[in-house]
């Protein structure tokens, strides 16, 4: 098992090196210093900025240095350009919380709900409920993600508040809902989380559910045709037992793949949601830094996003090996 994990880790190193190479090259196509300072900057200013960022060195040296920073998680030494007093590491630190507050619950809820709905659809395959669900999903998938977000915010926040006086959800903004240290010590305030994060999470779940449910249903339906199901039915197992005990277990591999695949989708979705609900998360910071040409932040954030992604892929493979021992040998 450990040999397998180690092998997976080693395999993904060239991939991560490739990502960093690509991102660093792409960010240097246009002179980042010039893009940030504009055409009115003096020669000295440009040179100085370039020097502090190390952009005057050969590309390979920069590549090595940045890789060193990423692998030692040393983001404290580089300062952001738009917030001169803050280091990239500080920005990263304060942005991770809000993003996790949306992404993690959304991932969990989406998975549980869509597996459930997928099972129901597969269980009643061809019947009215299955067909209605599938039609609904195709219709929903044909509407832009942004429309769901705009209407979700309007009806969830503005409409409820103005027409019915219900103020459950904020139409935007964020406040930390976990506090530690200070006078209060460790405290979790779920009310604040619900007020700021529940609506984005709900929208995120609805967005991801269409694709996921369709996929899980297909997986379940495919499993239905397998021999072991026929055997189980022949031996007299009830349909319910076959469905939930035999099939769900065997469908684990595609389910794990899917959960992990939907991870970047959720990150992508959370960029939009963070932007729309003005939540100060990582996605929002990335888009901000792009509009403000804040080169150090863009570079570091992309590297972190990619790292999260690569780690999730490795985790997927490890989970495979846990669920299906045959994988370890191949």
């Amino acid at each position: 098992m450990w040999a397998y994990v180690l092998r997976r880790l080693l395999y993904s190193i060239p991939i991560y090196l490739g990502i960093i190479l690509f991102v660093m090259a792409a960010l240097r196509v246009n002179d980042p210093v010039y893009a940030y300072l504009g055409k009115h900057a003096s020669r000295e200013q440009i040179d100085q900025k370039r020097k502090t960022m190390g952009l005057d060195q050969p590309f390979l040296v920069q590549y090595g240095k940045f890789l060193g920073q990423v692998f030692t998680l040393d983001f404290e030494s580089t300062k952001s350009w738009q917030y001169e007093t803050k280091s990239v590491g500080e920005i990263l630190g304060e942005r991770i919380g809000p993003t996790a507050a949306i992404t993690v619950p959304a991932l969990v809820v989406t998975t549980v709900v869509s597996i459930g709905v997928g099972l129901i659809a597969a269980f009643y395959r061809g019947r009215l409920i299955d067909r209605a669900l599938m039609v609904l999903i195709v219709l929903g998938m044909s509407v832009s993600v942004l429309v769901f977000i705009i209407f979700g915010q309007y009806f969830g926040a503005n409409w409820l508040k103005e027409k019915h006086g219900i103020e459950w959800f904020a139409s935007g903004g964020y406040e930390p809902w976990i506090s530690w240290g200070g006078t209060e010590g460790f405290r979790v305030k779920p009310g604040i989380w619900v007020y700021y994060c529940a609506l984005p999470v709900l929208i995120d779940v609805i967005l991801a559910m269409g694709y996921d449910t369709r996929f899980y249903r297909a997986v379940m339906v495919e499993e239905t045709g397998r021999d072991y199901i026929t055997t189980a039915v022949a031996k007299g197992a009830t349909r319910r037992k076959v469905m939930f005990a035999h099939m769900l277990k065997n469908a684990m591999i595609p389910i794990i793949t899917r959960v992990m695949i939907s991870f970047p989708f959720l990150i992508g979705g959370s960029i939009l949601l963070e932007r729309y609900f003005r939540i100060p998360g990582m996605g929002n910071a990335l888009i901000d830094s792009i509009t403000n040409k804040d080169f150090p932040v863009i570079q570091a954030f992309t590297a972190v996003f990619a790292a999260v992604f690569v780690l999730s892929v490795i985790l997927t493979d490890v989970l495979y090996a846990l669920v299906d021992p045959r994988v370890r040998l191949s």
Partner: protein
Amino acid sequence: MRVLSRAWSSRAARKLRRNRLAVAALAVILVYFFIGLWLTAADITAAATGGGGFDDHRDGRGSLFSALTLDKVEARVGPLTKRGWLEEESAETRARHVKYYLSRFQKALRLKDPEHRRLELESIRLGERTVGVTVDQATRIAAEVETGYRELDRFDDLDAPAAAEGRTRLAELEAQVGSLFAPLSGWRQMVYDGRLALGTDRQGRSTSARAIYSIKVALQIGLIVGLISVLIGAVLGAAAGYYGGWIDQVVQWLYSTLSSVPDLVLLAVLAYAFTGSYFDDNSKPFLSLIPVYAAMCMTFWIGPCRVIRGETLKLKELEYVQAARSIGFSRPYILIRHILPNTAHLMFINFSLLFIAAIKFEVVLSFLGLGVKAGPSWGRMIGEATQEVINGNFWQIGAATVAMFLLVLAFNILSDALQDAFDPKHVG
């Protein structure tokens, strides 16, 4: 010809034709493509004649091609944030519209130099509507409307039941404002009504015209991104699967690398890379889209590449390929003549999936300010409608969503039907 007739009578095509929903979807797609071609032709003729503006057809009827060109879609046609025809507008809003027209005329009439004033007045143009009165008449009518408009101030709320008198006065004012414009011929009146049918946005531009014009933009993005990505994916995937060895290693490394950055992040980085470049020029609608195309193609080719690589691995072990090898055909020949054509159905399916993905991605990118920057698009319309939605005005977001919904739904149905027809084992 023979290839076509063989494709038409193939088993998969027959299955597709039996699926009525798929045929209907195909019809919808054809209508959209026809509109897209039409709009392209309109833009080309407009560019060729140097036309633009609203005065290129003084004959009263106007060429059909000239109703929807980029210039017209971007021009003001009426008051700001007017609602569509289904929604009865409140008297307060109507009064605001009267004020809008009035202020446009007053701005011109305030000029001191008489010649200048006349020219300015003549240049007032809202969609098909042009000024139909002389300077003196306009001055008189504008003064009357202004005093009339002041009288309306007596009423606190024009929509209140007590303000019936105010509302009749308002109707008169509207008629007077209408008389400032030249009467339109039947055809042009129809075109103008069509422009206002779904209301206007915050800059007074026609929502309906913009929603229709965006069809062209969407199809352009979908076609270019879909075709290029499928082509890249097919060539790389087939080569990787067939040759194996280091080619396979490189292709696999390439796609696992590119797919390890979330799409949106990658696109954001590429958008940054292109800023300030030759393509970052909003005056050239086509050129300014090239970064968007490049960014989408860069991630979208991965899907078809994986699928086609897998299919090629399967195909190359089949007897017919081995027969071709034993006859002595070269490997590139076998790849192009025997393997790629047999992955055509996968290319089809992937193309229609990517087509949808590209159109939907445009919306997201445009909202984030990284996508379409010049000219209308569904993404820009939906993004710009945010403020309107909070005020309960759903016309712009609705128009863009419905226009997009029909196209994407048709493609969704078609790609499902394609999958059913070509891959009987696939569970949709």
